[in-house]
């Protein structure tokens, strides 16, 4: 896909012969993400059934092409007779919202604290990094269950949980970036010029770490969605009957043993496609925007 010779491409001044032109934009991943996003937006028009309700008499219909399936339920039905296709379609919305928002929350908190920590240094840095350490030691699951108990289960809750769990990754990476940015001339110049700290962080530091945050975000999207599935497995994920891909997999896991593959394989494929696309896009962005970014 890429004729990568980073040594030549990196930091090339404008006009200089550059290999960037050889890097093809990852069309297919972008297209997949776009389709998922469109499906999520227009779920109401696309889904043939209400994703949250079904009839027990219709339960466990296999996909249409399999024996016993019918065109009425193209991708079959689940344990309470809900249409799998409709759930997948609405699941795109739930998973997208949960995934993207959680990444934004984690990214927002992490970037902010990372900048503060890296730029201000001293006790601020110590406090933020120690909190991050303590946070890291608090397993995501523990946190998830506690939060579910306090706030009650909801998508919002999952977003908060995932955001709260993953901000430390951003904070660490961004802090590292800021530390090296601080040594750069334009920042030093701004400091010498008496620019207030707030302004330096806002005007000089933030725009320069935003690339890393974006790249990290695309890579985190997959992690977040898979974590959501794990939480559902343990019963503290997106609450049923809301359709989310991870929840659908967790709900359908028993079907694996009895040949009801569509209950797990279909949402699993959706997750895979999304994670795959987000990662490929992230990889591309990483090379494009910031080849230095290695963490994760």
């Amino acid at each position, binding site marked *: 896909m890429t004729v990568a010779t980073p040594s030549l491409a990196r930091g090339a001044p404008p006009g200089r012969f550059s290999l960037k032109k050889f890097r093809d934009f990852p069309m297919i991943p972008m297209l997949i993400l776009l389709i998922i996003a469109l499906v999520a937006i227009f779920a109401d028009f696309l889904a043939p059934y209400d994703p949250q*309700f*079904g*009839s*027990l*008499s219709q*339960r*466990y219909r296999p996909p249409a092409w399999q024996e016993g399936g019918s065109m009425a339920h193209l991708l079959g039905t689940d*344990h*309470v*007779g809900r249409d799998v296709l409709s759930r997948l379609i609405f699941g795109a919305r739930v998973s997208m919202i949960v995934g993207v928002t959680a990444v934004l929350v984690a990214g927002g908190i992490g970037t902010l604290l990372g900048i503060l920590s890296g730029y201000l240094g001293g006790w601020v840095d110590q406090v933020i990094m120690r909190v991050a350490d303590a946070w890291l030691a608090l397993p995501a699951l523990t946190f998830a*269950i506690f939060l*579910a*108990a306090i706030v*009650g*289960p909801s998508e919002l809750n999952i977003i908060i949980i995932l955001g709260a769990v993953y901000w430390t990754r951003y904070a660490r990476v961004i802090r590292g970036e800021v530390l090296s940015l601080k040594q750069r001339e334009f920042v030093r110049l701004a400091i010498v010029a008496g620019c207030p700290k707030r302004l330096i962080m806002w005007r000089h530091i933030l725009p320069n770490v935003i690339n890393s945050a974006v790249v990290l975000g695309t890579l985190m999207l997959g992690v977040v969605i898979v974590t959501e599935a794990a939480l559902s497995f343990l*019963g*503290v994920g997106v*609450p*049923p*009957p809301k359709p989310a891909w991870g929840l659908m997999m967790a709900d359908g*896991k*028993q*079907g*694996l*043993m*009895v040949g*009801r593959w569509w209950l797990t394989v279909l949402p699993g494929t959706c997750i895979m496609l999304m994670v795959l696309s987000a990662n490929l896009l992230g990889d591309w962005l990483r090379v494009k925007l910031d080849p230095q970014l290695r963490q994760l």
Partner: protein
Amino acid sequence: MRTKTVIRLDSNESAGTDNRKPSKITRRTAMALSTLGIVELGRGTAMAASPDGQLTWAVHVSLAPTWFDPAETPGIITPFMIMYAMHDAMVKPMPGNAAEPCLAESWKAAPDKLSYEFTVRAGVKFHNGDPVTAEDVKFSFERYRGTSAAMLKARMKAVETPDARTVRFVLKEPWPDFLTFYSSATGAGWIVPKKYVEKVGDEQFKKAPVGAGPYRFVSFTPGVELVMEAFDGYWRKMPTVKRLVFRTVPEEGTRLAALKRGEVDMAYSIRGELAEDLRKTPGLTLKSVVIQAPFWLYFADQWDPKSPWHDQRVREAARLAIDYKAVSEALTLGYSPVTNSIIPDNFAFYWKPPAAVYNPAKAKELLAAAGHGRGFEAGDYYCDTSYANVAEAVINYLQVAGIRLRLRPLERAAFFSSYSQKKLKNVIQGASGAFGNAATRLEAFAVKGGAYTYGNYPDIDDLFAKQASELDEKKRTELLHRIQQIIHERSVYAPIWQLAFLNGVGKRVGESGLGLIKGHAYSAPYEDVTIKK
């Protein structure tokens, strides 16, 4: 109920471990037969064969050492899974009899109902060889600190031991439920060896428990497995299986896989789809046990005049809108009986209500009459996450009728603490497997001040107060039946089903012990469990 094929172990050729002294066996057998008067005499002598082989259970929960000590029995069913093996009680539920004399040979209540006198069975021994005496019985009662311990002791004036085989419980005032509590609702009647416990202390006792049950403790690894071995001095009969192993396997699918591969012989709690698969797998059998855990919908807002749930017609409509049989069929293959009551059908004072009806048309009518012809927003539907699948099915039916609810599954701990702290509203999907009788259940769930009562009806409270002091069994039964009837008529609850516990049994198992004792979820009595020859 089923005592037929219990003794199918005429295996003199069983692996050459036959080093028993025949005299001992005969004595024990004779004892068992004389007291029970069941089991075929002719076969009895064939039990001279020593226990053999090993059976392994895949258990769905983590085993806790507290379960090895009857004194700490919490009010949940699971500890009895182990207690039936390791210990024995004076009186306990056995096949066909909810209060069968075990370590007690017999008992009688004084005419004034102020004292109960038990005779300890002669010649019964603990695993360490000590005889079971009246002292042990007294000690065990006084040592007991599990569920309802405070209440038991508060009502007790004295525990007397006139001789080594006689124990007399003297009550402060008549208490009709004493035997219920002593025999099944608590662990107070399960006997531990006084001398041994006093010698080793409570901590050590849990590490190396000694009891009077059919199996003695061998080893325990928390979270992994418990191993027990047949106790050849068990009074009732010689167990036929040498070793019992209980392995914790939390994931349902894994339990089934282990069963299929023959790693375990029995797997507890195999639900829904997996149960279907189990049923189809040659060599494996599905064994369902109905346990004392009814499920229900509780209309928490019914006392709030502003709530639509205040209208009895709405509650009734909700009850009519749900096809309980179909739900049971879908989730437990139809094994969970639709009893239409919040009281387990094996409990004392249980009143059998009319069968549940599924009539969506009538439900709509009722709703229309109540002014909700086009349906209504009925609020939240709370449930324990582990039973969200039941909720999903139920909520679907209510939706069809026009009762639109939002499912709010809560993680188990959070659910039960919110439930009891009265923080939930609208509709609650509850369940209970607590021990006791109809009165104890009603106290918690229907009477003013009950731990899970969100509101009360004065007539019910009155009736309940009356029955509490009623000594006449018959009158008391009437009063309790009346309360249950009122609850049914007013649709205070919408009972869903009484949960069936579905288990898998492998091909090596002869008698699984499952379902022998009514209401008991697990294999028991273990001395009746056999391996197929």
